Each structure stands twice: as structure tokens, then as C-alpha cells.
């Protein structure tokens, strides 16, 4: 059992800080997603664990051991990358055996462990094939088998599904979840820019932006109670509206809204976050009146864009019988418990 710890790890390339004093702990057996847009530092963090980038300062610990100065080949890490990186001149079984040979596993043990890893990923029948004879999804399974064959304490997954098409991707997500149930002792660091992957797979999500850790918590925490505007808009969809905090609520565009202001001081400015699918059509508590600027039909839902006092509000509504017309006056409402107040200043802290 080994977890990962980043101890104020900073990385810079040519004077540009690409990872700014990251503090993060991945518990043994935990799936931690590093979620963020490109250039947010998430891949750098993963590469610092693998040993391909050297931190400017700080320490990386694996299983409690400081590995900051250790070369990659001494870290015992399984790694799967976006483009699979299978060795094109080796058969599937040779690819999977590579790590075992490199780590000088007893020769007699290798075939069984290769077979085991291939079975686990459902690729047992393809052992004799070359990578170029496999589809993208199959190559990805082999890459995972290759990483698992060395029985790593830590598995690093760098955008492993982004080269697959949407359908394969959801299949592989299920597959990865199953693998993790079968190998509960492996800690997984999963780098992705896709919130669905992070929400589906991760025990906890670390949200990264501009080289910094913005937020970290369980998917539910981040989704229901994001702490920053960035998290709110990056994890799921969000309407972000400027409000002034009042006693027992907030004021938006001159109208009082009922909600829990938490610890925000009355009179201070804050951002109201409410998810588009938690908005209802028609009168109710916390009504927002405006005109329809855009209507999109998305099969099971309608997405309305409503201009409310110069702010565009998104609402996802179950498919409407009568499609509203542009320019119609509508009223949206939300329950007090569905809204979150983000106090200003947190977002860039």
C-alpha cells in the first residue's frame, strides 16, 4: 500500500512556473483525479511523481519515501499515457513482460504474470499480436495491462481516454472502475481535462488552474459546494451571478433572494452559483424574470438562455411540450438549498 504526497512541489521551465507549490496527498488505494484545462500544471504534477521533471523545490513522497532525487526507473510506477506508447516492435506479451524483465522478476514467473495482467484487461486472446494489429481501445487495454503487470503501488494515468471516441471512452471508464475494485490497494493519479471522467472515477478531485491547486474534495463536495468560481464552472455547468450578501440571503439586481449566506458578511459582494438543471420554469421561491435570448433543443432537455437584468442565465429543463419563442418573457426559480454563495476574492486566492 503506498500513497503519494506532494510537499509544496514547484516546477519551472525556463523561468516560467508551471507548478506552484503543490500540496496534495493521495491516500493509499485512493483514486485522485487531477482536473484542469491544458496548461494548468496537472500533467507536470504527474510527471513529477514519475520522475520526468525535477521539482525546483519541494518533495515528492511515494509510500512515505522521499523519491524526489530518485531516477524514474527506481520508483516502481505503472504509467499509461494518452497515445499508449506501446513498443511497436514487440508483441503484446513482450510489451507486458517488459517491466517484469526490467525489474528482474524471476524468469519462471513472467509468463503467468503476463497472462494474469492480460486476462485482467480482457486481452488474453491477443498476446501474440503486434500493437499495430490492434484497435485504439485494445491498445489502451494492453497499455494498462503493461502498467499493472509490475504490480505497482501507484498507477499514473495521463489522459488515458482522450484518444478514444466517445462510445469507447464510456466503456473504458466502466472498465477502469472495475479494475480499481479488483485492485483496491493501488493508488491512482488520474490526469484529465474531462469533468465526466473525473466525476465518474475519482474518490477525490483536485482542481488545477494556472499552475495552482484551486480546490480539492470529493466529487459531491466540489459539485454541490464549490469553493471557487473556477471550480464551479469547470466541474459541471454553473450560472455565476454577482450578488450582495444580505441578512439571511442575498440581493441580485435589486431583488432579494432567500438562501444560506453561510459565513459571508452582510453587505459584502459575492458570487451566486446555481446549476442550470436546478432551475425550474414558472413562479416559485427566488424567482428570476427575463426574456429568452436563445433556445437549444438537446433531445431529453431544452437549454434556455434567459437575459435577466443584463445577465445571461442558463437553464436546463426537461424537454418542454411547447417550445418557448425568442423574446418571450419567462420566470425561472430555484430552491434556497440549491444555491451556493462564493465569497468574492476566494476565486483567485
Amino acid at each position, binding site marked *: 500500500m503506498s500513497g503519494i504526497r506532494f510537499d509544496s512541489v514547484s516546477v519551472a521551465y525556463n523561468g516560467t512556473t508551471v507548478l506552484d507549490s503543490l500540496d496534495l496527498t493521495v491516500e493509499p488505494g485512493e483514486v485522485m483525479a487531477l482536473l484542469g484545462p491544458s496548461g494548468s500544471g496537472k500533467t507536470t504534477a504527474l510527471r513529477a511523481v514519475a520522475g520526468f521533471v525535477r521539482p525546483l523545490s519541494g518533495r515528492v513522497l511515494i509510500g512515505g519515501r522521499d523519491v524526489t532525487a530518485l531516477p524514474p526507473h527506481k520508483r516502481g510506477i505503472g504509467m*499509461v499515457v*494518452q497515445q499508449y506508447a506501446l513498443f511497436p516492435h514487440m508483441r503484446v506479451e513482450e510489451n507486458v513482460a517488459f*517491466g517484469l524483465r526490467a525489474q528482474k522478476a524471476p524468469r519462471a514467473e513472467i509468463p503467468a504474470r503476463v497472462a494474469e495482467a492480460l486476462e485482467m484487461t480482457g486481452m488474453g486472446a491477443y498476446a501474440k499480436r503486434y500493437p499495430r494489429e490492434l484497435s485504439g481501445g485494445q491498445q489502451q487495454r494492453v497499455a494498462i495491462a*503493461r502498467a499493472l503487470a509490475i504490480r505497482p503501488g501507484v498507477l499514473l494515468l495521463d489522459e488515458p481516454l482522450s484518444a478514444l471516441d466517445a462510445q469507447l471512452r464510456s466503456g473504458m471508464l466502466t472498465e477502469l472502475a472495475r479494475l480499481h475494485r479488483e485492485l483496491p490497494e493501488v493508488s491512482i493519479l488520474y490526469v484529465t481535462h474531462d469533468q465526466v471522467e473525473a466525476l465518474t472515477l475519482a474518490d477525490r478531485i483536485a482542481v488545477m488552474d494556472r499552475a495552482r491547486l484551486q480546490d480539492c474534495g470529493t466529487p459531491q463536495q466540489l459539485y454541490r459546494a464549490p469553493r471557487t468560481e473556477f471550480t464551479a464552472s469547470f466541474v459541471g455547468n454553473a450560472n455565476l451571478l454577482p450578488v450582495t450578501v444580505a441578512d439571511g440571503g442575498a440581493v441580485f439586481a435589486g431583488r432579494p433572494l432567500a438562501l444560506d449566506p453561510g459565513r459571508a458578511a452582510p453587505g459584502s459582494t459575492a458570487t451566486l452559483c446555481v446549476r442550470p438543471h436546478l432551475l425550474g420554469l414558472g413562479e416559485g421561491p427566488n424567482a428570476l424574470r427575463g426574456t429568452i435570448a436563445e433556445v437549444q433543443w438537446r433531445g431529453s432537455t431544452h437549454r434556455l438562455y434567459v437575459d435577466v437584468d443584463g445577465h445571461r442565465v442558463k437553464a436546463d429543463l426537461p424537454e418542454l411540450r411547447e417550445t418557448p419563442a425568442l423574446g418571450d418573457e419567462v420566470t425561472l426559480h430555484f430552491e434556497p438549498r440549491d444555491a451556493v454563495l462564493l465569497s468574492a476574492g476566494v476565486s483567485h486566492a
Partner: protein
Amino acid sequence: MPDASGRAATQNPAPAGPSAPVGVAVVGRAGVPAVAGAAPRGLWGAAPQGVRRALWVLPPVAVLALVFLYPLALVVQQSFTPENGGGAFDAYASVFASASFREALGTTVWLAVGATAGCLLLGFTLALIIAFVPFPGAKAVARFIDVFLSFPSFLITLALLFIYGTVGMANGVWTDLFGVAEGPFRFLTTPWGVLLAEITYFTPFVMRPLLAAFSQLDTAQLEVAAGLGARPARIVRQVILPESLPALAAGGSLVLVMCLNEFGIVLFTGAKDVTTLPMLIYGKAILESDYAAACVVAVVNIAISVGLFGLYRVVGKRAGA
């Protein structure tokens, strides 16, 4: 303004002339041919046009035949017809019987094989460092290698005369250091001097295809391999080397052929006891005016190098180079 006219050509091809096939505009993303398989031939249609296309091949082939194939044929013919009469194989018999020919053949082959081996080893090492242990200026070094290729080979021998010559740099440093009258470096006029010069000059020919092959290699493979616990030596042996074998084979066989045919380096060495086949041809033809013998040696030289070059083409085809 080549720029502007070029743009116009790709963006607004001329208005449809009388021969226009009823406006079937092909719209394909650049890089993804719209009709991949049928691409080259589809345009030109069936047999009659195919024949007309084949006719276009004739002029350059005719020129080549006149200035290259016909002279080569004459060389072969002359090798069988000694000037002062005698049987068809007389010239061959006397050349093969001569010790100088057999020695030249031996020297040529071992020099070429040795130089090729040296070039492969040195080129692989240097290219490996440039590509995978990059340092500031590595790009400039790679460009320097390209420039190096455009210089004539005899420059290297000329330089070696100053470096390792009897009164050159190396011996000068040695005598200064140890206070002796003469330095130990006097291999320049032996085959070893030629070997050193050939390795120096031809190594870039190995490095260029290798650097190209290395740049194609997915570096994620190296990282994954290291992550799986492989040390650099194992990564080089099991990942980089197998994937660059085609480039090594192609570069190596090219260098082998070029070494077999090298003349400038040997000529500039000026050593009487280093004679290769090209030197022998030059000596027989120009210095001794014995054209029949020169042609015999030339035929042997052609047989060896063309045979090897065929091998290079086969290897290169398989390597996709």
C-alpha cells in the same frame, strides 16, 4: 514574388476549360486525400493516357542511357578486348594474377567494412546523445552535421595532415610535453590514417537517418519504459535500438558503398602502400595508360558496389526510408 503566384495556384485554379470534367469539385481536408486509394492513377484515366504517360519517361531515360549506360557498357566491352590483341579474358587473367590487384581488393574491403563499423558505432552514440540527452546547442550541432556533409572528403585528409602529420599538432604537443625529438603519431600514411579519415567523413551519413528515426520515436515510450523500471542501457538496447535498426541498416549500407568507392581521401593521403580499387583504376588509366586493366578493375568495382547498393535499396525499402 513566387509567394503570391503560388497561393493563387492552390486557391484559384484556372477557370474550367473545354476539357473540364463536369464540375466535380473535390473537397477534402488537406492531408487527408479525398479519394485516397485511387489518387495518382484516377486522374489520368485508363490505358491510352497511361501509355502517353509512359512516353514521358523516354527522354530522361534516353539521356541517361547515352551518357551513363552506354559508357558503362563500353567499359565492360573494353575489359574483354585488350588493346594489343589476345583472348577475351587475357586482361582479367593478368589483373587477377597481379599481387597489387589482390592487395588492393583486400585493402578496399577491410577498410570499407572497418570504416562502416566505426561509423555505425560512433554515429549511433553521437546521435543518441543529441536526440535523447539534449543540451543547449544540440540543434546547432545537428545543423553542423548537415553542413559537414556538403564538404568534399579530401578536406579531412588535409586536416589530418596538420593534426597527425610528422610535424603536426599531435606530435608537436607530444614533443613539447615530453621533451623528446619525435612524436609517436605516424599512422597517417598507413591504412589506419585512411580509416580514421573515412570514419570521420562518413559518420554524418549515418547520423542523419538516425536523427530522423529518433525524432519519429515517441518519447512517451522511453518514459513509460523508465517508469516500468528500465535503466537507460536497457531502454537503448530494447526500445531505441530495435526501432532504429532500419535507419542503421540503411545508413550503414550507404556508407559501405561510399567507402568502397572513396577516392579523394586515399589520394590525399599520398601513401604508396595504401591502394584501393578506385586508386588502382586511376593509376592504371591515367598514370600507366593501361585502359584494359583499368576497365577490368572497374568491372570488379562495379560488381561489388552495385551488388551492395542493391542490398541497400532492398533494406531501405523495407525500412521505408
